[in-house]
């Protein structure tokens, strides 16, 4: 068996989850969708994160009850091997769509702001190499790299937010309620797909995280950190740009260091931050590809993860290239996942979890009857 699982400590896992969740939560959504009718993302995104965590909580509870080591084992327990394979493929497809959306964002930034003379395809090729190497090297490598990168990521992020201090003005956050409670909750629900891949990946790699109990502890810590980082960042963004201004920016965080208009030695922090974000995004995508590959290997009893990792990495890059060339099919499918992804990913997991819980309850009660009969 060469599934490259390994075991890592809690710190590494927390860093991996936090980086993955923050990269999705801060960068994936389109500004025009999030901000056109007011800016209340500092309320919607934490709600979305908690919503995604609640799906995770149902899954981890079901895994504990059914004594399954990971998501694939739980699906097999609930639906049998064939049913599990179908559900797992469906989950993999949705995760791949989420990965390509995240990767596409950074490919566009690299292409538009940094390497205007390079072609989109060459940039994608560089990304492909990184994804293949990291996802093939496995769980331990990704997590240990995340621990090293996580410190740099947090430090740069804090520096960026502090450096833009002079641009924060309270009038920019008004009207405070954005477009009203209904719109806020709808966006929160739709944004659940930003955080679901991270929590689902934690369910898939629960074995490497030392079991379900430890995985839930790691996820809680990651949730707290992610909620704090996303809320503070979105709040400070709202204090930097009025809603009609920020709706027109492709990646507002990237422009944040220049919004001050005052020159200091950190004025080009945008470029440094962007490279750290790219590294973090690649790490997050590698983790998602690894977990999707692991789910595939477990479902179809593959003994080596590397062919699956390579194939899924190529598929992700192809999706990015197709959406860049605005091929109608790929584009609309990715948009569909963006709009309804929360339902598409949450419903199968909740359904399988409920079936597993019911089955385990039935089994326990029948074992209990047998025990009484024996007495």
């Amino acid at each position: 068996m060469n599934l490259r699982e390994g075991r890592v400590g809690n710190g590494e896992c927390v860093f991996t989850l936090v980086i993955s969740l923050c990269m999705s939560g801060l960068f994936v959504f389109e500004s025009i969708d999030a901000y056109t009718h007011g800016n209340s993302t500092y309320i919607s995104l934490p709600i979305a994160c908690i919503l995604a965590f609640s799906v995770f909580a149902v899954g981890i509870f079901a895994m504990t009850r059914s004594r399954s080591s990971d998501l694939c084992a739980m699906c097999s327990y609930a639906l049998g091997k064939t049913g599990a394979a179908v559900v797992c493929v469906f989950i993999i497809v949705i995760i791949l769509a989420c990965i390509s959306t995240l990767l596409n964002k950074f490919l566009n930034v690299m292409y538009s702001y940094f390497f205007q003379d390079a072609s989109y395809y060459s940039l994608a090729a560089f990304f492909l190499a990184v994804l293949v190497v990291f996802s093939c090297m496995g769980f331990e490598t990704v997590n240990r790299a995340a621990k090293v990168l996580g410190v740099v990521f947090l430090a740069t992020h804090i520096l960026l937010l502090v450096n833009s201090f002079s641009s924060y003005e309270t009038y920019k956050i008004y009207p405070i309620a954005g477009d009203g409670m209904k719109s806020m909750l709808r966006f929160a629900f739709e944004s659940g797909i930003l955080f679901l891949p991270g929590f689902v990946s934690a369910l898939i790699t629960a074995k490497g995280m030392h079991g379900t109990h430890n995985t839930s502890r790691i996820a809680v810590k990651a949730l707290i950190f992610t909620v704090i980082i996303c809320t503070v960042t979105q709040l400070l963004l709202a204090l930097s740009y009025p809603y009609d201004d920020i709706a027109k920016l492709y990646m507002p965080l990237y422009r944040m260091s220049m919004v001050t208009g005052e020159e200091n030695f950190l004025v080009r922090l945008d470029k440094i931050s962007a490279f750290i974000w790219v590294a973090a995004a690649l790490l997050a995508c590698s983790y998602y590809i690894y977990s999707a590959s692991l789910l595939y290997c477990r479902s179809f009893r593959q003994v080596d993860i590397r062919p699956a990792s390579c194939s899924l990495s190529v598929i992700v890059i192809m999706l990015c290239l197709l959406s860049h060339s605005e091929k109608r099919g790929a584009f609309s499918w990715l948009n569909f996942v963006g709009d309804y992804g929360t339902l598409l990913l949450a419903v199968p997991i909740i359904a399988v979890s409920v079936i597993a819980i019911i089955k385990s309850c039935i089994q326990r009660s029948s074992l209990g009857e047998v025990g009484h009969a024996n007495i």
Partner: protein
Amino acid sequence: MQIFKRIKKPVCFLLILVNTLSLCSCLGAVSLEKYGYVLTIGLDTGKRYKYSISFLMENEVEESEQKTASKINIITAEGDNIYDAIYIAESGLPYRLNFSRTNYIVISYEIAANDEIMELFSTSWAMLKLRTSANMIVANATASEFIEGLNYSSSVNATKLESNLIDFYENEGLSSMMSITSFMSAIESSRYDAVLPLGGTDTSVDSPPEKDSDTTEGSERKGGMISYTLGAALFSDSVLCGVLSGRENQILLLIQGKLKGSVIQFTRADGTKYSVRIGNAELPRIKVDLSGDKIRLHYSLLVSAVLEQDNSSKVVEKMRKEGKLTEDMDMQIREFLHSACKTVFEQCRDVGCDAAGVGKSVCKEFKTVKEWEEFDFRSRLSDVECDFDIRIELADIYVSTYPE
């Protein structure tokens, strides 16, 4: 041996780190001489093409026994957009234009008044690698005349020029200051309007003035640069709609809460004179009343006053003992400021410029975006009424007293 085993990993790690330093080189190295650094960009209406764009360059260095001087030259090219002008300019130059050191963008009055700024600014400034902290100036003539007037004696230190503008704005408040970032933000946000420094040319610095405009805001001046910045250009959205003098700009900064110091001289009833340096002691407190047909604002300004000059030593002694201004001085300064604030506010409002940033306060009264957008603040700007409540506190006394 055990020591070597222990330090092996850290040493290897250090070696890898040090060796990676050699990988940190430019992929496309370009010699400095291949670039010509543009210090200032000037935007005018062209004769053959839509725009005439001037580039103030600083790229040649002459060395002599006594001094090292930088030569400047001005290159002008026409085009329908800035890229066309750059290509035409570069076709006759031995280097490429580089905008990473550009400090100013000077816009001619005609372009600013004809709403052509946004068409020019719709270019991708990121492609030019222009610093977003570059300041903008509206020239009360053509931009090329203003740029030519920056040529002062035998050397131009453009960095000092920029710091002078900043000092002038911060210490005296006679000129405004706004970067590209702030200008674009003002247009996009619709909660306040841009106020840019107003530049002018005084051709009489070396010869007697032939007409009124050959002065520095009505005052004769000899020596120094032909070009100067004094006062402000008011914008309504992206269109130039009015101007303020230097003194009026100081009052506008006071209303905005940004005035650090401005010296005003007063004469008492008994004929003695005194000068105070006034500035904002804190940000203005603004109350908004939307209950009627009009938007009513109540400004509370706390102004700090530093007594800089007073001909009456008795009054100075009294103020030193009591730690506050005398009643008549307090009333005189308050009345002056009240009248000046109201005049400047209404002047800006009447030309359609929200220079005071009224929109920033009004938008806080709305809970949802729908309510704010339905209110349509911009169309109601002319209905804004404002009153000022000014309090003066004596901050310090720096006087040389004269015997009465």
